[in-house]
């Protein structure tokens, strides 16, 4: 099989792809357009100056409010970041696909060994202050931004997956398959590593909420609160003061930006 013609094959427009793109663009435009307009009119101005450490983005997750079978946050994250556009390759088993597809946010179900009490919570990149993934990246692609967001600069990522070995939370995903449809706000490609970036494309365009937070609130659970940890008046700081909360794997002393209560 000619590799080059294969490559052109993927990029060449054929009618089924054309109509799929048309449908995808049309649907997403119809769904997103009202939101886009509203967001653009709200705070929304694209950032013109570099981020500083004045803001530290963080999140509190209340496991008590998290409903066992609800996956609203996961679904919203998948939609926001184009993960729902990635499909199982032909010949792949479903189980394998779940382990190989990008998974920025996931639901974890737990049972207490002593009491048997079951709980559930969403697990995502913890945006540590001392991220092990940043320490081990050979090219510096995995980095921590001044405002506390830990993300991968995929222009420098060589796909070695050392950060995935190092992450104490299984937060990172490797792209195992070619990406054919990419939203502008979330570029991704085969062979690089990615993880939750606190919806950085929203934050850099002036918004202050993440997709998961919005979805959880919309579903009525309000288990996720996101905001500026450096601002004592922000909802997330208030929430952290109101309830006892902790870091997952606190013994590692990573000073995570995501805190949990009720677990």
């Amino acid at each position, binding site marked *: 099989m000619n590799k080059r013609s294969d490559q052109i094959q993927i990029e060449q427009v054929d009618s089924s792809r054309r109509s799929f793109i048309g449908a995808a663009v049309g649907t997403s435009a119809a769904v997103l357009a009202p939101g886009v307009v509203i967001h653009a009119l709200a705070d929304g101005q694209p950032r013109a100056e570099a981020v500083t450490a004045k803001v530290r983005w963080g999140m509190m997750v209340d496991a008590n409010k998290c409903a066992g079978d609800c996956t609203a946050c996961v679904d919203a994250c998948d939609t926001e970041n184009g993960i729902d556009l990635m499909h199982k390759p032909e010949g792949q088993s479903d*189980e394998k696909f779940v*382990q*190989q597809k990008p998974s920025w946010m996931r639901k974890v179900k737990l049972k207490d060994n002593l009491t048997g009490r079951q709980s559930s919570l969403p*697990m995502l990149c913890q945006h540590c202050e001392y991220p092990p993934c940043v320490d*081990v*990246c050979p090219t510096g692609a995995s980095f921590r931004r001044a405002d506390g967001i830990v993300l991968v600069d995929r222009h420098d990522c*060589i796909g070695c997956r050392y950060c995935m070995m190092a992450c104490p939370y299984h937060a990172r995903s490797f792209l195992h*398959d070619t990406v054919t449809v990419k939203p502008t706000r979330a570029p991704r490609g085969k062979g690089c590593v990615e993880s939750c970036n606190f919806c950085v494309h929203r934050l850099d365009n002036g918004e202050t909420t993440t997709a998961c937070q919005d979805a959880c609130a919309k579903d009525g659970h309000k288990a996720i609160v996101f905001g500026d940890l450096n601002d004592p008046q922000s909802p997330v700081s208030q929430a952290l003061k109101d309830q006892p909360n902790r870091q997952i794997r606190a013994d590692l002393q990573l000073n995570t930006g995501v805190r949990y209560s009720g677990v």
Partner: protein
Amino acid sequence: MRKITFREWSIDNGRYWALLAILAAIAGIGGLSALYMEHEGHWVTGMTNLVVWGTPHVFAVFLIVAASGALNVASIGSVFGKTMYKPLARLSGLLAIALLIGGLLVLVLDLGRPDRLIVAMTTYNFKSIFAWNIYLYVGFMVIVAAYLWTMMERRVNKHSRTVGLFAFVWRLALTTGTGSIFGFLVSRQAYDSAVLAPMFIIMSFAYGLAFYLLVLMFAYNQEGRPMGDVIVNRLKNLLGVFVAAVLFFTIVYHLTKLYGTKYHGVESFFLIHGGIYTMAFWVGQIILGALIPLGILYHPALGKSRSWIASACALVILGGLAGMYFIIIGGQAYPLDLFPGMTVIDEGFGEVAANIAPYSPSLPELLLGLGGVAVAMLMTTVGIRVLKFLPESLADKVVDPHSA
């Protein structure tokens, strides 16, 4: 001073080219597998977001570890002044470079973006041991090449001790760096341990010498060059010491983890309930890789038979691969200790992966790994054929004039 003559490996042309053809075919298939994995994407492999390093890494790390160990024989001659090892030094250097190149090839071809190797070689985060390893690996090749030059070029012979010492220290740093890839990781129960660096150093001694002895015996046997029992006995006894040392480090590693309650989960997984990983440990690393070779090498009768010694070397290598499989893949398969005191019913990667992450080696991965071994052997074969790496004779009288 006794002069040692070195001569090119001169088995007859037909057999030489047949050997090259076989090795080239295996290497070529490995290359095609890498192309397939890179073109399709890693979904065709057994690796997932949970087990991110698979069979290629087992082979790559093994080859890299063996490479630094293969240089030992030369170091014993140059640095520690043992005259008997001096004729063996050239092949030692060649094998070290060849094994390292084979291992690095496999590692680089498995990258998600091997086309970005230039980025890896120009952009560095020096807190990462990987970044240091790039310098350590490339530097090793340069230094060993210089070392070989001091050994093979008469005019610079006088520098071979200095360069040899430098190479010896460098290879210790390299193997420390390789062991620290895992030793520095706080995230996993099986890693995060200072003992991994010296353990890898000791493993390198054993695997490197096993490779060396096998290649040496094969080359001499095929051509009919004399190789006396004195040298074979020395090397096989040394191998026995190294294998015993690896066993010691393995025991220390597990005893320490068995002591702490929080590691009981991972230890019972490794030693009892881990399925393939338990097999790889007990049958692969301990029985086949340590106990049986020790039995053979120190047996009064078997230890004198060349074919039994060769089998012992092969078993050590197999055991080493099993040990790497156990450390690298077993260490990833065991779940993270996210919620102590709680059982994870579903970690979010499907029920199948709720506890132990599933992994099975896929064919492309295996072929890539084997391709790396083939490249190393190909380089060695061409090297000994084309240049004067092998001493004319390793008969007892030549090696040790005082022997009976």
